[in-house]
Protein backbone atom coordinates (compact mmCIF):
# COMPACT_ATOMS: atom_id res chain seq x y z
CA UNK A 1 0.00 0.00 0.00
CA UNK A 2 1.16 3.48 -0.84
CA UNK A 3 1.23 6.18 1.78
CA UNK A 4 -1.63 8.61 1.89
CA UNK A 5 0.75 11.45 1.27
CA UNK A 6 1.87 9.89 -1.95
CA UNK A 7 -1.68 9.13 -3.01
CA UNK A 8 -2.58 12.76 -2.52
CA UNK A 9 0.58 14.02 -4.15
CA UNK A 10 -0.18 12.00 -7.25
CA UNK A 11 -3.61 13.59 -7.37
CA UNK A 12 -2.19 17.08 -6.98
CA UNK A 13 0.40 16.41 -9.61
CA UNK A 14 -2.20 15.30 -12.12
CA UNK A 15 -4.37 18.30 -11.38
CA UNK A 16 -1.35 20.50 -11.82
CA UNK A 17 -0.60 19.04 -15.22
CA UNK A 18 -4.20 19.41 -16.32
CA UNK A 19 -4.47 22.99 -15.18
CA UNK A 20 -1.09 23.87 -16.63
CA UNK A 21 -1.92 22.35 -20.00
CA UNK A 22 -5.34 23.94 -20.18
CA UNK A 23 -3.82 27.29 -19.42
CA UNK A 24 -1.12 27.16 -22.06
CA UNK A 25 -3.67 25.77 -24.48
CA UNK A 26 -5.88 28.77 -23.87
CA UNK A 27 -3.02 31.19 -24.37
CA UNK A 28 -1.79 29.39 -27.45
CA UNK A 29 -5.24 29.72 -28.96
CA UNK A 30 -5.23 33.40 -28.06
CA UNK A 31 -2.05 33.68 -30.08
CA UNK A 32 0.04 34.51 -27.03
CA UNK A 33 2.30 31.46 -27.30
CA UNK A 34 4.44 31.02 -30.41
CA UNK A 35 5.07 27.75 -32.20
CA UNK A 36 3.66 24.28 -31.70
CA UNK A 37 2.22 23.12 -28.41
CA UNK A 38 1.68 19.42 -27.75
CA UNK A 39 -0.60 18.84 -24.80
CA UNK A 40 -0.85 15.87 -22.49
CA UNK A 41 -4.39 16.36 -21.31
CA UNK A 42 -5.68 12.85 -20.66
CA UNK A 43 -2.17 11.53 -20.09
CA UNK A 44 -1.66 12.98 -16.61
CA UNK A 45 -1.51 9.63 -14.85
CA UNK A 46 1.29 8.42 -17.08
CA UNK A 47 3.35 11.50 -16.47
CA UNK A 48 2.66 11.96 -12.76
CA UNK A 49 2.94 8.28 -11.91
CA UNK A 50 6.22 7.86 -13.74
CA UNK A 51 7.77 10.98 -12.25
CA UNK A 52 6.84 9.95 -8.72
CA UNK A 53 8.83 6.77 -9.22
CA UNK A 54 12.03 8.69 -9.99
CA UNK A 55 14.39 10.67 -7.82
CA UNK A 56 15.80 14.06 -8.66
CA UNK A 57 19.23 12.81 -9.64
CA UNK A 58 17.80 10.33 -12.11
CA UNK A 59 18.43 11.46 -15.67
CA UNK A 60 15.37 12.34 -17.66
CA UNK A 61 15.00 12.63 -21.44
CA UNK A 62 11.69 13.95 -22.66
CA UNK A 63 9.74 14.20 -25.85
CA UNK A 64 7.58 16.87 -27.40
CA UNK A 65 4.59 16.21 -25.13
CA UNK A 66 6.37 16.73 -21.82
CA UNK A 67 5.36 19.92 -20.08
CA UNK A 68 4.02 17.75 -17.30
CA UNK A 69 7.35 16.01 -16.82
CA UNK A 70 9.12 19.36 -16.71
CA UNK A 71 6.93 20.84 -14.03
CA UNK A 72 7.18 17.74 -11.85
CA UNK A 73 10.94 17.49 -12.13
CA UNK A 74 11.64 20.13 -9.53
CA UNK A 75 12.07 23.15 -11.76
CA UNK A 76 10.21 26.27 -10.60
CA UNK A 77 7.04 25.71 -12.56
CA UNK A 78 6.65 29.32 -13.60
CA UNK A 79 9.98 29.07 -15.38
CA UNK A 80 8.67 26.18 -17.41
CA UNK A 81 5.62 28.16 -18.39
CA UNK A 82 7.63 31.27 -19.18
CA UNK A 83 9.81 29.13 -21.41
CA UNK A 84 6.77 27.97 -23.31
CA UNK A 85 5.85 31.61 -23.76
CA UNK A 86 9.33 32.21 -25.16
CA UNK A 87 10.23 34.63 -22.42
CA UNK A 88 13.51 35.71 -20.92
CA UNK A 89 12.69 34.30 -17.50
CA UNK A 90 12.01 30.89 -18.97
CA UNK A 91 14.20 28.07 -17.80
CA UNK A 92 16.04 28.23 -21.15
CA UNK A 93 15.74 32.02 -21.39
CA UNK A 94 13.19 31.63 -24.17
CA UNK A 95 15.59 29.85 -26.44
CA UNK A 96 13.87 26.49 -26.26
CA UNK A 97 10.11 26.85 -26.14
CA UNK A 98 7.65 24.03 -25.62
CA UNK A 99 9.65 21.45 -27.53
CA UNK A 100 13.08 22.13 -26.03
CA UNK A 101 12.83 22.50 -22.29
CA UNK A 102 15.65 21.34 -20.06
CA UNK A 103 16.69 21.99 -16.50
CA UNK A 104 19.99 20.32 -15.94
CA UNK A 105 19.99 21.25 -12.24
CA UNK A 106 17.26 18.64 -11.72
CA UNK A 107 18.65 16.34 -14.38
CA UNK A 108 15.94 17.14 -16.86
CA UNK A 109 18.19 16.77 -19.90
CA UNK A 110 15.56 18.09 -22.17
CA UNK A 111 13.04 17.45 -24.82
CA UNK A 112 14.31 16.99 -28.33
CA UNK A 113 11.90 17.52 -31.18
CA UNK A 114 13.40 14.84 -33.39
CA UNK A 115 11.49 11.70 -32.52
CA UNK A 116 13.82 8.92 -31.48
CA UNK A 117 16.91 10.99 -30.87
CA UNK A 118 16.60 10.80 -27.10
CA UNK A 119 16.40 7.02 -27.37
CA UNK A 120 20.01 7.18 -28.49
CA UNK A 121 21.23 9.92 -26.15
CA UNK A 122 19.72 8.29 -23.08
CA UNK A 123 22.30 5.53 -23.48
CA UNK A 124 25.01 8.00 -22.61
CA UNK A 125 23.78 9.14 -19.25
CA UNK A 126 23.23 5.50 -18.37
CA UNK A 127 26.81 4.72 -19.31
CA UNK A 128 27.91 7.74 -17.27
CA UNK A 129 26.06 6.38 -14.25
CA UNK A 130 27.74 3.02 -14.74
CA UNK A 131 31.16 4.59 -15.13
CA UNK A 132 30.76 6.74 -12.04
CA UNK A 133 29.22 3.93 -10.02
CA UNK A 134 26.14 5.82 -8.95
CA UNK A 135 22.70 4.29 -8.85
CA UNK A 136 21.11 7.04 -10.93
CA UNK A 137 18.68 5.68 -13.42
CA UNK A 138 17.92 7.17 -16.82
CA UNK A 139 14.27 7.50 -17.80
CA UNK A 140 13.39 8.23 -21.39
CA UNK A 141 9.86 9.21 -22.34
CA UNK A 142 8.58 8.54 -25.85
CA UNK A 143 5.42 7.68 -27.72
CA UNK A 144 4.05 4.74 -29.64
CA UNK A 145 4.85 6.34 -32.98
CA UNK A 146 8.48 6.75 -32.07
CA UNK A 147 8.85 3.00 -31.78
CA UNK A 148 9.09 3.11 -35.58
CA UNK A 149 12.38 4.97 -35.56
CA UNK A 150 15.68 3.18 -36.04
CA UNK A 151 17.04 4.40 -32.73
CA UNK A 152 14.54 2.17 -30.96
CA UNK A 153 16.49 -0.87 -32.11
CA UNK A 154 19.90 0.65 -31.56
CA UNK A 155 18.97 1.73 -28.07
CA UNK A 156 17.30 -1.41 -26.79
CA UNK A 157 19.91 -3.62 -28.36
CA UNK A 158 22.75 -1.72 -26.70
CA UNK A 159 21.10 -1.28 -23.34
CA UNK A 160 20.06 -4.91 -23.40
CA UNK A 161 23.55 -6.16 -23.97
CA UNK A 162 25.23 -3.67 -21.63
CA UNK A 163 22.51 -3.98 -18.98
CA UNK A 164 22.19 -0.24 -18.76
CA UNK A 165 20.10 1.37 -16.01
CA UNK A 166 17.41 2.69 -18.32
CA UNK A 167 13.67 2.85 -17.90
CA UNK A 168 11.96 3.14 -21.26
CA UNK A 169 8.69 4.92 -20.61
CA UNK A 170 6.65 4.29 -23.71
CA UNK A 171 3.52 6.39 -23.53
CA UNK A 172 1.17 4.65 -25.91
CA UNK A 173 -1.62 7.09 -26.57
CA UNK A 174 -2.69 5.02 -29.56
CA UNK A 175 -1.82 7.63 -32.17
CA UNK A 176 1.13 9.26 -33.81
CA UNK A 177 -0.52 12.36 -35.18
CA UNK A 178 -3.27 10.77 -37.32
CA UNK A 179 -1.74 7.32 -37.49
CA UNK A 180 -3.23 4.70 -35.18
CA UNK A 181 -0.64 2.53 -33.48
CA UNK A 182 -2.33 -0.55 -34.90
CA UNK A 183 -1.49 0.69 -38.40
CA UNK A 184 2.09 1.41 -37.50
CA UNK A 185 3.23 -1.59 -35.50
CA UNK A 186 2.48 -5.29 -35.80
CA UNK A 187 2.06 -5.91 -32.06
CA UNK A 188 -0.74 -4.48 -30.00
CA UNK A 189 1.19 -4.39 -26.75
CA UNK A 190 4.37 -2.60 -27.66
CA UNK A 191 6.07 -3.55 -24.41
CA UNK A 192 6.33 -7.04 -25.84
CA UNK A 193 8.87 -5.74 -28.30
CA UNK A 194 11.34 -6.05 -25.45
CA UNK A 195 11.38 -9.75 -26.31
CA UNK A 196 13.80 -9.03 -29.13
CA UNK A 197 16.33 -7.73 -26.63
CA UNK A 198 15.75 -9.89 -23.61
CA UNK A 199 14.30 -6.80 -21.97
CA UNK A 200 11.25 -7.31 -19.79
CA UNK A 201 8.16 -5.50 -20.97
CA UNK A 202 5.32 -4.22 -18.83
CA UNK A 203 2.04 -3.12 -20.33
CA UNK A 204 0.18 -0.96 -17.87
CA UNK A 205 -3.09 0.92 -17.67
CA UNK A 206 -1.66 4.36 -18.17
CA UNK A 207 -4.79 6.03 -16.88
CA UNK A 208 -4.48 4.58 -13.43
CA UNK A 209 -1.81 6.59 -11.69
CA UNK A 210 -1.21 3.93 -9.04
CA UNK A 211 -0.62 1.25 -11.63
CA UNK A 212 1.75 3.56 -13.42
CA UNK A 213 3.60 4.38 -10.24
CA UNK A 214 3.94 0.73 -9.30
CA UNK A 215 5.00 -0.41 -12.75
CA UNK A 216 7.56 2.29 -13.28
CA UNK A 217 8.85 1.80 -9.72
CA UNK A 218 9.45 -1.84 -10.49
CA UNK A 219 11.44 -0.88 -13.58
CA UNK A 220 13.37 1.77 -11.68
CA UNK A 221 14.19 -0.74 -9.00
CA UNK A 222 15.52 -3.23 -11.53
CA UNK A 223 17.66 -0.55 -13.13
CA UNK A 224 19.02 0.66 -9.78
CA UNK A 225 19.95 -2.88 -8.85
CA UNK A 226 22.01 -3.19 -12.01
CA UNK A 227 19.61 -5.64 -13.61
CA UNK A 228 19.27 -3.61 -16.76
CA UNK A 229 16.57 -1.86 -18.72
CA UNK A 230 12.82 -2.37 -18.73
CA UNK A 231 10.33 -1.36 -21.40
CA UNK A 232 7.27 0.05 -19.67
CA UNK A 233 4.27 0.76 -21.84
CA UNK A 234 1.62 3.08 -20.45
CA UNK A 235 -1.62 2.84 -22.37
CA UNK A 236 -3.44 6.11 -22.42
CA UNK A 237 -5.00 8.67 -24.71
CA UNK A 238 -4.59 12.32 -25.57
CA UNK A 239 -7.88 14.10 -25.41
CA UNK A 240 -6.91 16.85 -27.78
CA UNK A 241 -5.44 16.80 -31.23
CA UNK A 242 -1.77 16.26 -31.86
CA UNK A 243 -1.06 19.91 -31.08
CA UNK A 244 -3.09 22.70 -29.62
CA UNK A 245 -5.50 23.65 -32.36
CA UNK A 246 -5.41 20.36 -34.29
CA UNK A 247 -9.06 19.36 -34.79
CA UNK A 248 -8.01 15.67 -34.84
CA UNK A 249 -10.86 14.76 -37.14
CA UNK A 250 -9.08 11.51 -37.87
CA UNK A 251 -10.38 9.96 -34.63
CA UNK A 252 -13.86 8.54 -34.06
CA UNK A 253 -15.76 10.68 -31.56
CA UNK A 254 -16.92 7.53 -29.88
CA UNK A 255 -13.37 6.63 -29.05
CA UNK A 256 -12.59 10.04 -27.63
CA UNK A 257 -15.71 9.95 -25.50
CA UNK A 258 -14.93 6.52 -24.11
CA UNK A 259 -11.45 7.60 -23.11
CA UNK A 260 -12.71 10.79 -21.51
CA UNK A 261 -14.93 8.61 -19.40
CA UNK A 262 -11.77 7.02 -18.13
CA UNK A 263 -10.28 10.35 -17.10
CA UNK A 264 -7.18 9.56 -15.04
CA UNK A 265 -7.89 12.38 -12.64
CA UNK A 266 -11.45 11.29 -12.10
CA UNK A 267 -10.42 7.68 -11.52
CA UNK A 268 -7.95 8.66 -8.86
CA UNK A 269 -10.19 11.29 -7.29
CA UNK A 270 -12.96 8.79 -6.86
CA UNK A 271 -10.54 6.45 -5.23
CA UNK A 272 -9.30 9.11 -2.82
CA UNK A 273 -12.83 10.12 -1.92
CA UNK A 274 -14.27 6.66 -1.62
CA UNK A 275 -11.34 5.46 0.45
CA UNK A 276 -11.74 8.62 2.49
CA UNK A 277 -8.18 9.63 1.93
CA UNK A 278 -9.43 13.11 1.25
CA UNK A 279 -12.74 14.72 1.92
CA UNK A 280 -14.79 16.70 -0.57
CA UNK A 281 -13.70 19.87 1.14
CA UNK A 282 -10.09 18.93 0.96
CA UNK A 283 -10.59 18.12 -2.68
CA UNK A 284 -12.00 21.56 -3.35
CA UNK A 285 -9.10 23.11 -1.50
CA UNK A 286 -6.54 21.19 -3.50
CA UNK A 287 -8.18 22.19 -6.74
CA UNK A 288 -8.19 25.81 -5.70
CA UNK A 289 -4.57 25.70 -4.66
CA UNK A 290 -3.56 24.27 -7.99
CA UNK A 291 -5.54 26.85 -9.88
CA UNK A 292 -4.03 29.67 -7.85
CA UNK A 293 -0.57 28.36 -8.39
CA UNK A 294 -1.03 28.11 -12.13
CA UNK A 295 -2.54 31.57 -12.20
CA UNK A 296 0.64 32.87 -10.57
CA UNK A 297 2.74 31.09 -13.18
CA UNK A 298 0.69 32.65 -15.89
CA UNK A 299 1.14 36.09 -14.45
CA UNK A 300 4.87 35.51 -14.17
CA UNK A 301 5.04 34.33 -17.75
CA UNK A 302 3.02 37.15 -19.19
CA UNK A 303 4.96 39.78 -17.28
CA UNK A 304 8.30 38.34 -18.20
CA UNK A 305 10.09 40.26 -20.94
CA UNK A 306 11.15 38.91 -24.31
CA UNK A 307 14.75 37.81 -24.50
CA UNK A 308 17.16 40.36 -25.91
CA UNK A 309 18.72 39.93 -29.30
CA UNK A 310 22.24 39.36 -28.00
CA UNK A 311 21.08 36.08 -26.52
CA UNK A 312 20.78 34.75 -30.07
CA UNK A 313 24.54 34.79 -30.56
CA UNK A 314 25.37 33.24 -27.20
CA UNK A 315 25.90 29.53 -26.53
CA UNK A 316 26.77 28.50 -30.07
CA UNK A 317 30.17 27.50 -28.75
CA UNK A 318 31.55 27.30 -25.27
CA UNK A 319 34.07 30.10 -25.00
CA UNK A 320 33.96 31.19 -28.63
CA UNK A 321 32.12 34.19 -30.05
CA UNK A 322 30.02 34.28 -33.15
CA UNK A 323 29.15 37.58 -34.76
CA UNK A 324 25.77 39.26 -34.67
CA UNK A 325 24.28 41.66 -37.12
Amino acid at each position, binding site marked *: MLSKDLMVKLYEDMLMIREFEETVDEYAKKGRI*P*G*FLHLAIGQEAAQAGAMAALKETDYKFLDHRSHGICILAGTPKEKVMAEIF*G*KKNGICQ*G*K*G*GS*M*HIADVSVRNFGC*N*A*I*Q*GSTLAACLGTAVAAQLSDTDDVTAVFFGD*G*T*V*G*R*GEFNESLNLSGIWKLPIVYVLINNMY*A*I*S*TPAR*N*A*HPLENLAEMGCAYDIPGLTIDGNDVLEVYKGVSKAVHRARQGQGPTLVELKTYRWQGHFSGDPAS*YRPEEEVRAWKERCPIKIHRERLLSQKIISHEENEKIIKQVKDEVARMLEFSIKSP*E*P*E*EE*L*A*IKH*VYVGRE*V*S*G*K
Partner: protein
Amino acid sequence: MRVISMREAINEALHEEMARDNKVFVLGLDVGKMGGDFGVTKGLWAKYGPKRVRDTPLSEAAILGVANGAAFAGYRPVAEIMFADFLTECFDQIVNYTAKAHYMFAGQLKAPLVVRTPTGAGMRAAYHHSQNVESWFLNVPGLTIVAPSTPYDAKGLLISSIRDDNPVIFLEHKMLYSFKGEVPEQTYQIPIGKADIKKQGNDVTVITSMRMTHLCLNAAKKLAAQGINVEVIDMRTLLPIDKETIFASVAKTGRVVTVFEAPKTGGYGSEIGMMIAEEMFEFLQAPIKRVASLDVPVPFAPSLEDYVLPNEIDIEQAIQKIVRF
Protein backbone atom coordinates in the same frame (compact mmCIF):
# COMPACT_ATOMS: atom_id res chain seq x y z
CA MET B 1 -5.52 33.70 -64.62
CA ARG B 2 -6.69 31.72 -61.66
CA VAL B 3 -4.95 32.50 -58.38
CA ILE B 4 -4.15 29.70 -55.94
CA SER B 5 -1.77 29.08 -53.07
CA MET B 6 1.51 27.25 -53.31
CA ARG B 7 -0.01 24.47 -51.21
CA GLU B 8 -2.79 24.08 -53.75
CA ALA B 9 -0.40 24.28 -56.68
CA ILE B 10 1.70 21.47 -55.32
CA ASN B 11 -1.38 19.46 -54.51
CA GLU B 12 -2.60 19.95 -58.04
CA ALA B 13 0.67 18.76 -59.51
CA LEU B 14 0.43 15.61 -57.43
CA HIS B 15 -3.14 15.00 -58.54
CA GLU B 16 -2.26 15.46 -62.17
CA GLU B 17 0.80 13.26 -62.11
CA MET B 18 -0.97 10.48 -60.23
CA ALA B 19 -3.75 10.58 -62.80
CA ARG B 20 -1.32 10.53 -65.69
CA ASP B 21 1.07 7.83 -64.58
CA ASN B 22 0.12 4.92 -62.38
CA LYS B 23 3.76 4.39 -61.53
CA VAL B 24 3.57 7.50 -59.39
CA PHE B 25 2.74 6.89 -55.76
CA VAL B 26 2.92 8.98 -52.62
CA LEU B 27 4.14 7.99 -49.18
CA GLY B 28 5.04 9.52 -45.86
CA LEU B 29 3.75 10.26 -42.40
CA ASP B 30 0.06 11.13 -42.33
CA VAL B 31 -0.11 11.82 -46.07
CA GLY B 32 -3.20 9.64 -46.47
CA LYS B 33 -6.56 10.34 -44.96
CA MET B 34 -5.21 13.36 -43.10
CA GLY B 35 -3.71 14.83 -46.27
CA GLY B 36 -0.31 15.61 -44.81
CA ASP B 37 0.84 17.73 -41.91
CA PHE B 38 0.64 20.86 -44.07
CA GLY B 39 -2.35 19.62 -46.07
CA VAL B 40 -0.36 19.26 -49.28
CA THR B 41 -1.52 15.74 -50.14
CA LYS B 42 -5.18 16.48 -49.53
CA GLY B 43 -7.66 14.46 -51.56
CA LEU B 44 -5.13 12.02 -52.97
CA TRP B 45 -6.02 9.24 -50.60
CA ALA B 46 -9.72 9.52 -51.30
CA LYS B 47 -9.05 9.45 -55.03
CA TYR B 48 -6.22 6.94 -55.37
CA GLY B 49 -6.66 4.81 -52.32
CA PRO B 50 -4.27 3.54 -49.68
CA LYS B 51 -2.13 1.54 -52.09
CA ARG B 52 -0.93 4.58 -53.96
CA VAL B 53 -1.16 7.02 -51.06
CA ARG B 54 0.62 5.30 -48.24
CA ASP B 55 0.71 6.35 -44.62
CA THR B 56 3.90 5.04 -43.11
CA PRO B 57 5.04 4.49 -39.58
CA LEU B 58 7.39 7.07 -38.09
CA SER B 59 10.37 5.62 -39.95
CA GLU B 60 12.15 8.06 -42.20
CA ALA B 61 14.85 5.62 -43.29
CA ALA B 62 12.13 3.16 -44.25
CA ILE B 63 10.28 5.86 -46.17
CA LEU B 64 13.36 6.53 -48.23
CA GLY B 65 14.03 2.82 -48.42
CA VAL B 66 10.62 2.25 -49.96
CA ALA B 67 11.21 5.14 -52.31
CA ASN B 68 14.64 3.87 -53.32
CA GLY B 69 13.66 0.28 -53.88
CA ALA B 70 10.45 1.12 -55.71
CA ALA B 71 12.25 3.63 -57.89
CA PHE B 72 14.89 1.03 -58.72
CA ALA B 73 12.03 -1.26 -59.71
CA GLY B 74 10.55 1.27 -62.11
CA TYR B 75 8.12 3.24 -59.96
CA ARG B 76 8.10 6.99 -59.39
CA PRO B 77 7.63 7.45 -55.66
CA VAL B 78 7.01 10.86 -54.19
CA ALA B 79 7.99 10.71 -50.55
CA GLU B 80 7.06 13.39 -48.08
CA ILE B 81 9.42 14.01 -45.19
CA MET B 82 7.31 15.99 -42.77
CA PHE B 83 10.01 18.57 -42.03
CA ALA B 84 13.29 18.93 -43.89
CA ASP B 85 15.08 18.78 -40.54
CA PHE B 86 14.14 15.10 -40.36
CA LEU B 87 16.18 14.33 -43.46
CA THR B 88 18.94 13.63 -40.96
CA GLU B 89 17.05 10.42 -40.24
CA CYS B 90 17.24 9.20 -43.82
CA PHE B 91 20.45 10.93 -44.72
CA ASP B 92 22.22 7.67 -45.40
CA GLN B 93 19.58 6.43 -47.80
CA ILE B 94 19.76 9.65 -49.78
CA VAL B 95 23.49 10.31 -49.72
CA ASN B 96 24.87 6.81 -49.93
CA TYR B 97 22.11 5.10 -51.90
CA THR B 98 19.76 7.35 -53.88
CA ALA B 99 22.53 9.63 -55.08
CA LYS B 100 24.96 6.88 -56.03
CA ALA B 101 22.74 4.05 -57.30
CA HIS B 102 22.83 5.08 -60.93
CA TYR B 103 26.56 5.68 -60.92
CA MET B 104 27.93 2.81 -58.89
CA PHE B 105 26.29 0.10 -60.94
CA ALA B 106 27.24 1.85 -64.18
CA GLY B 107 23.79 3.02 -65.10
CA GLN B 108 21.90 -0.19 -64.40
CA LEU B 109 19.67 1.35 -61.75
CA LYS B 110 17.81 4.62 -61.85
CA ALA B 111 16.27 6.40 -58.89
CA PRO B 112 13.45 8.54 -60.30
CA LEU B 113 12.08 9.59 -56.97
CA VAL B 114 11.09 12.87 -55.41
CA VAL B 115 11.52 13.78 -51.76
CA ARG B 116 9.15 16.63 -50.98
CA THR B 117 9.82 18.40 -47.75
CA PRO B 118 8.90 21.65 -46.00
CA THR B 119 11.95 23.71 -45.21
CA GLY B 120 12.86 27.05 -43.75
CA ALA B 121 12.32 29.21 -40.71
CA GLY B 122 9.73 31.68 -39.54
CA MET B 123 7.21 29.45 -37.81
CA ARG B 124 8.55 29.83 -34.27
CA ALA B 125 9.22 26.12 -34.33
CA ALA B 126 12.94 26.39 -33.66
CA TYR B 127 15.82 23.97 -33.99
CA HIS B 128 14.21 20.90 -35.46
CA HIS B 129 11.45 22.34 -37.61
CA SER B 130 13.11 25.35 -39.22
CA GLN B 131 16.37 24.52 -40.88
CA ASN B 132 17.39 25.21 -44.44
CA VAL B 133 19.04 21.97 -45.36
CA GLU B 134 20.32 22.32 -48.92
CA SER B 135 23.92 22.60 -47.79
CA TRP B 136 23.88 19.09 -46.36
CA PHE B 137 23.48 17.83 -49.90
CA LEU B 138 25.43 20.29 -52.04
CA ASN B 139 28.58 18.24 -52.11
CA VAL B 140 26.78 15.01 -53.02
CA PRO B 141 27.02 14.34 -56.76
CA GLY B 142 23.95 12.66 -58.18
CA LEU B 143 21.34 14.76 -56.43
CA THR B 144 19.07 17.41 -57.85
CA ILE B 145 17.64 20.07 -55.54
CA VAL B 146 14.60 22.09 -56.52
CA ALA B 147 13.33 25.04 -54.48
CA PRO B 148 10.45 27.09 -55.89
CA SER B 149 9.35 30.52 -54.73
CA THR B 150 5.92 30.82 -56.36
CA PRO B 151 2.87 28.64 -56.90
CA TYR B 152 3.47 28.76 -60.64
CA ASP B 153 7.03 27.55 -60.33
CA ALA B 154 6.07 24.98 -57.73
CA LYS B 155 3.52 23.25 -59.90
CA GLY B 156 5.63 23.18 -63.05
CA LEU B 157 8.77 22.16 -61.24
CA LEU B 158 7.12 19.40 -59.26
CA ILE B 159 5.71 17.91 -62.43
CA SER B 160 9.15 18.06 -64.02
CA SER B 161 10.70 16.56 -60.91
CA ILE B 162 8.34 13.62 -60.90
CA ARG B 163 9.01 12.97 -64.58
CA ASP B 164 12.75 13.37 -64.26
CA ASP B 165 14.73 10.14 -64.18
CA ASN B 166 16.98 11.55 -61.49
CA PRO B 167 16.25 11.80 -57.80
CA VAL B 168 15.03 15.23 -56.75
CA ILE B 169 14.92 16.82 -53.32
CA PHE B 170 12.01 19.19 -53.60
CA LEU B 171 12.15 21.93 -50.98
CA GLU B 172 8.93 23.69 -50.09
CA HIS B 173 9.37 26.73 -47.93
CA LYS B 174 6.72 26.35 -45.27
CA MET B 175 6.13 30.09 -44.99
CA LEU B 176 5.15 30.11 -48.65
CA TYR B 177 2.45 27.44 -48.50
CA SER B 178 -0.25 30.08 -48.27
CA PHE B 179 1.45 32.44 -50.69
CA LYS B 180 -0.77 32.93 -53.73
CA GLY B 181 -0.14 33.42 -57.39
CA GLU B 182 -1.41 32.72 -60.86
CA VAL B 183 -1.32 29.09 -61.89
CA PRO B 184 -2.63 27.60 -65.15
CA GLU B 185 -5.17 24.85 -64.74
CA GLN B 186 -3.57 22.65 -67.34
CA THR B 187 -0.45 20.56 -66.85
CA TYR B 188 2.85 22.23 -67.65
CA GLN B 189 6.49 21.73 -66.92
CA ILE B 190 9.24 24.09 -65.87
CA PRO B 191 12.67 22.83 -66.80
CA ILE B 192 14.89 21.71 -63.97
CA GLY B 193 18.20 23.53 -63.86
CA LYS B 194 16.91 26.86 -65.15
CA ALA B 195 16.98 29.90 -62.95
CA ASP B 196 14.35 32.58 -63.42
CA ILE B 197 14.97 36.30 -63.61
CA LYS B 198 12.15 37.49 -61.43
CA LYS B 199 13.04 41.12 -62.05
CA GLN B 200 15.30 42.57 -64.69
CA GLY B 201 17.87 45.20 -63.82
CA ASN B 202 21.38 46.22 -64.67
CA ASP B 203 23.00 47.73 -61.61
CA VAL B 204 23.41 44.67 -59.47
CA THR B 205 22.64 40.95 -59.60
CA VAL B 206 20.82 39.55 -56.60
CA ILE B 207 20.76 35.76 -56.50
CA THR B 208 18.26 34.13 -54.21
CA SER B 209 15.60 31.47 -53.77
CA MET B 210 12.37 30.48 -52.02
CA ARG B 211 11.06 32.90 -49.39
CA MET B 212 14.01 35.22 -49.80
CA THR B 213 12.98 35.87 -53.39
CA HIS B 214 10.04 37.89 -52.18
CA LEU B 215 12.12 39.87 -49.73
CA CYS B 216 14.55 40.62 -52.52
CA LEU B 217 11.77 41.78 -54.81
CA ASN B 218 10.47 44.08 -52.10
CA ALA B 219 13.92 45.45 -51.49
CA ALA B 220 14.39 45.91 -55.23
CA LYS B 221 11.22 47.93 -55.39
CA LYS B 222 12.36 50.24 -52.63
CA LEU B 223 15.79 50.61 -54.17
CA ALA B 224 14.29 51.47 -57.54
CA ALA B 225 13.03 54.65 -55.91
CA GLN B 226 16.66 55.42 -55.09
CA GLY B 227 17.62 54.85 -58.70
CA ILE B 228 19.15 51.42 -58.10
CA ASN B 229 18.06 48.97 -60.73
CA VAL B 230 18.28 45.48 -59.25
CA GLU B 231 18.18 42.22 -61.18
CA VAL B 232 16.68 39.45 -59.07
CA ILE B 233 17.53 35.89 -60.05
CA ASP B 234 15.51 33.17 -58.40
CA MET B 235 17.55 29.99 -58.65
CA ARG B 236 14.49 27.69 -58.55
CA THR B 237 16.85 24.74 -59.01
CA LEU B 238 19.70 24.79 -56.50
CA LEU B 239 21.49 21.81 -58.00
CA PRO B 240 22.53 21.62 -60.84
CA ILE B 241 23.39 25.31 -60.87
CA ASP B 242 22.28 27.42 -63.81
CA LYS B 243 25.62 29.11 -64.48
CA GLU B 244 24.50 30.52 -67.77
CA THR B 245 21.79 32.76 -66.38
CA ILE B 246 23.95 33.88 -63.49
CA PHE B 247 26.99 34.61 -65.60
CA ALA B 248 25.00 36.54 -68.18
CA SER B 249 23.63 38.72 -65.45
CA VAL B 250 26.99 39.25 -63.78
CA ALA B 251 28.52 40.14 -67.12
CA LYS B 252 25.92 42.88 -67.33
CA THR B 253 26.03 44.21 -63.76
CA GLY B 254 29.48 43.39 -62.41
CA ARG B 255 28.01 43.38 -58.92
CA VAL B 256 26.60 40.49 -56.95
CA VAL B 257 24.67 39.98 -53.74
CA THR B 258 23.54 36.48 -52.75
CA VAL B 259 20.57 36.12 -50.44
CA PHE B 260 19.81 32.74 -48.90
CA GLU B 261 18.08 31.94 -45.66
CA ALA B 262 20.50 29.39 -44.18
CA PRO B 263 23.40 30.38 -41.92
CA LYS B 264 26.13 32.16 -43.83
CA THR B 265 29.07 29.85 -43.29
CA GLY B 266 28.86 26.93 -45.66
CA GLY B 267 25.59 28.18 -47.09
CA TYR B 268 24.44 27.99 -50.67
CA GLY B 269 25.54 31.54 -51.30
CA SER B 270 29.13 30.47 -50.81
CA GLU B 271 28.95 28.11 -53.74
CA ILE B 272 27.33 30.65 -56.01
CA GLY B 273 29.73 33.37 -54.98
CA MET B 274 32.78 31.20 -55.42
CA MET B 275 31.68 30.12 -58.87
CA ILE B 276 31.49 33.75 -59.85
CA ALA B 277 34.82 34.60 -58.22
CA GLU B 278 36.38 31.77 -60.17
CA GLU B 279 34.85 32.23 -63.58
CA MET B 280 33.66 35.83 -63.78
CA PHE B 281 36.45 37.63 -61.99
CA GLU B 282 37.14 40.04 -64.83
CA PHE B 283 33.60 41.32 -64.70
CA LEU B 284 33.47 42.01 -61.01
CA GLN B 285 33.45 45.63 -59.94
CA ALA B 286 32.82 45.02 -56.28
CA PRO B 287 33.11 42.32 -53.64
CA ILE B 288 30.50 39.61 -53.73
CA LYS B 289 28.30 39.99 -50.72
CA ARG B 290 26.32 37.36 -48.88
CA VAL B 291 23.12 38.01 -47.00
CA ALA B 292 22.21 35.03 -44.84
CA SER B 293 21.20 33.95 -41.37
CA LEU B 294 23.61 34.41 -38.52
CA ASP B 295 25.81 31.40 -37.86
CA VAL B 296 23.57 30.05 -35.12
CA PRO B 297 20.83 27.42 -34.82
CA VAL B 298 17.27 28.73 -35.24
CA PRO B 299 16.16 29.82 -31.75
CA PHE B 300 12.63 29.76 -30.42
CA ALA B 301 11.58 33.17 -29.10
CA PRO B 302 10.20 35.40 -31.86
CA SER B 303 12.55 38.20 -30.93
CA LEU B 304 15.48 35.85 -31.36
CA GLU B 305 14.32 34.13 -34.53
CA ASP B 306 13.61 37.47 -36.18
CA TYR B 307 17.03 38.73 -35.27
CA VAL B 308 18.77 35.69 -36.68
CA LEU B 309 17.04 35.59 -40.06
CA PRO B 310 17.91 37.86 -42.95
CA ASN B 311 15.31 40.57 -43.48
CA GLU B 312 14.49 43.22 -46.07
CA ILE B 313 16.61 45.83 -44.42
CA ASP B 314 19.63 43.55 -44.41
CA ILE B 315 19.10 42.96 -48.10
CA GLU B 316 18.63 46.63 -48.93
CA GLN B 317 21.73 47.62 -47.04
CA ALA B 318 23.82 44.92 -48.64
CA ILE B 319 22.73 45.95 -52.10
CA GLN B 320 23.38 49.61 -51.39
CA LYS B 321 26.81 48.80 -50.11
CA ILE B 322 27.74 46.78 -53.18
CA VAL B 323 26.29 49.25 -55.61
CA ARG B 324 28.15 52.12 -53.96
CA PHE B 325 31.42 50.23 -53.70
